[in-house]
């Protein structure tokens, strides 16, 4: 098992380098002169040239790429034009927020989606199944940002049940930063008020973010359960008189969950992309909002950094999924 992890980590590094190459390539097709952009609209030509030389923007592209890689490995992600800070420190500030949001969203999607998929399979074509399938099909079609807005409008502005945005109320001080995840930090420091507020602020954004994933997980799990329930070994279990509950929740689910896991991994990736939308709507200070603001002002370093970070995140999650696969399916374990 350890060998598998090591091999995958090495592979991941190669993929990351490839990713950096692609992102770097993209950043260089940008029309417009990066030196002039960095210098600002009032700069004279000499000032622009000076900045160009300072930043090595006049060197050939391969050299620049190598320099760029070097910078990255040292933690230098450049400087953000719109926040005027190190991109690295911006990332450190904003990434935990996104991570917290995504974790709650994916947690919700899995904990609700898997059982609903199971229920849909067991009650196939009866009315609970129709409702479940409706949610499953709709969830993927609803625009996440629009859902967020509608939730905001109704549950926050109209009914005043939830806060409008942000991570904490304006008057609430942040708990001491241990992990960066507000819910965890507040629990660890015993700050119940901050905990409650953090949770309350997370409800609407995670709900909006989780819906497409929830829908997909329901669909895949339901389909896999249906197919598994048709399998011969289920017939055998029934022939032995084993009870329905154990058959569905153990014998069938453990087999059906494997392709569902793959979908969870895929959906996690989409969710990372979705943070851009949800953070915009709820003014949630995460990397998604950061990247959007950067894109609007053609501020390129942050976009690159966020792309790399989220790409790496996705790769790590896929690795975890593969490990889970091996854990759950003994046949895969034998092949390692």
């Amino acid at each position: 098992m350890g060998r598998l992890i090591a091999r995958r980590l090495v592979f991941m590094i190669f993929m990351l380098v490839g990713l950096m190459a692609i992102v770097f390539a993209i950043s260089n097709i940008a029309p417009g002169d990066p030196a002039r952009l960095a210098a600002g609209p009032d700069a004279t030509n000499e000032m622009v040239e000076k900045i160009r030389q300072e930043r090595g923007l006049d060197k050939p592209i391969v050299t620049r790429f190598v320099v760029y890689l070097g910078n990255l490995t040292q933690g230098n992600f450049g400087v953000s034009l719109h926040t005027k800070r190190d991109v690295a420190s911006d990332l450190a500030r904003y990434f935990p927020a996104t991570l917290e949001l995504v974790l709650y969203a994916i947690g919700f999607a899995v904990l609700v989606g898997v059982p609903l998929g199971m229920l849909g399979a067991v009650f196939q074509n009866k009315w609970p199944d129709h409702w479940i399938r409706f949610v499953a099909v709709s969830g993927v079609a609803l625009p996440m940002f629009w859902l967020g807005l509608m939730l905001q409008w109704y549950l926050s502005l109209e009914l005043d049940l939830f806060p409008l945005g942000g991570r904490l109320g304006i008057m609430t001080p942040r708990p001491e930063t241990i992990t960066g995840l507000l819910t965890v930090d507040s629990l660890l420091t015993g700050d119940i008020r901050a905990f409650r507020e953090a949770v309350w602020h997370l409800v609407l954004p995670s709900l909006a973010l989780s819906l497409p994933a929830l829908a997909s997980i329901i669909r895949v799990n339901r389909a896999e359960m249906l197919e598994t329930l048709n399998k011969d070994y289920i017939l055998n279990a029934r022939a032995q008189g084993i009870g329905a509950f154990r058959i569905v929740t153990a014998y069938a689910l453990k087999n059906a969950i494997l392709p569902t896991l793959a979908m969870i991994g895929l959906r996690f990736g989409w969710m990372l992309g979705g943070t851009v939308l949800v953070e915009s709507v709820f003014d949630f200070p995460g990397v998604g909002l950061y990247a959007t603001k950067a894109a609007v002002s053609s501020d390129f370093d942050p976009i690159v950094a966020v792309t790399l970070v989220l790409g790496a995140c996705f790769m790590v999650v896929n690795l975890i999924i593969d490990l889970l696969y091996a854990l759950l399916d003994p046949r895969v374990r034998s092949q390692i």
Partner: protein
Amino acid sequence: MQPLLSIRDLALQFDTFDGSYKAIDHVSIDLNPGEALGLVGETGCGKSVLTRSAFGLVPTPPAKITSGSVTFEGREILGLSAKEQRAMRGRDVAMIFQDPMTFINPVFKIGTQLVDAIRAQRQGRVSKREARSIALAMLDKVQLPNPDRQFESYPHQLSGGMRQRVLIAMALTAEPKLLIADEPTTALDVTIQAQILDLIARLVEDMGISLIMISHDLGVVSQVCSRVAVMYAGQIVEDAPVEQVFNNPAHPYTKGLLAAVPHPFKVEDKLEGIDGNLPNLYEPPKGCRFAARCGHAQAACSVGPIRQVTIEKNHDVACVLYNNQEVHV
């Protein structure tokens, strides 16, 4: 003596997009206690469906039982609730199936599945530890080498023959009155086949279990069973002790089956097949479903249901050719 299992006039059809597939056509057959009955027929003749439907293992949409009754130890079992049917399975009747690869859950250990089955069979009245020792004892009885180690193994780590032994063990821990073996050796190597058949024959005799063995292979059935029922396209065409089937086959289909098997010692010029194809069971012919392929077909064959006629002791055949040879025993 009351038969253990009695199927009377059972008819079953599958309602599908293409129409109603009339899989079983008014079949009647009895099984006596302690008997070993072989149910023989080609793929698709309904032999599996017959036994499964008797015990509620055929999902009732799309299947539909349109007539008949099934009694087990005198008790009518067709109308039982799902819960009662489940209670019967694994206690009174146990089944072993064809392909051990697909019939064992690949993601659970053998031992876990055995323990689950044993606890279900005894309705949870045994502890896990007791179930484990029962399982190990049975694994030993089916001659699985290294039962302790296999208990902790996963199905894909065992060979085909070993998996089939596990399935047999699973079925027999129930100490059932009836064992239904559905093509238990079809998926196994020929060398292992003999071993498994031998094992089944011995266990069935040791434990005093009645047996129905389903197969398309007369040879397999003859090794284990004392009586053979031949099925064709959802109808039972002949029912006789095994020696009679071989020495004195009555129904033209049975004769055709026997003639098609090459003799191990006689050199023959060519094999005799049976001309024609299976009938279309969405619109089955009236009367004998074999009539279209039968060299001796007459007008009477296609008129109405063919009566089962006893031509000698324990030897019944459903064929109009023998109507005048009926004896009454």
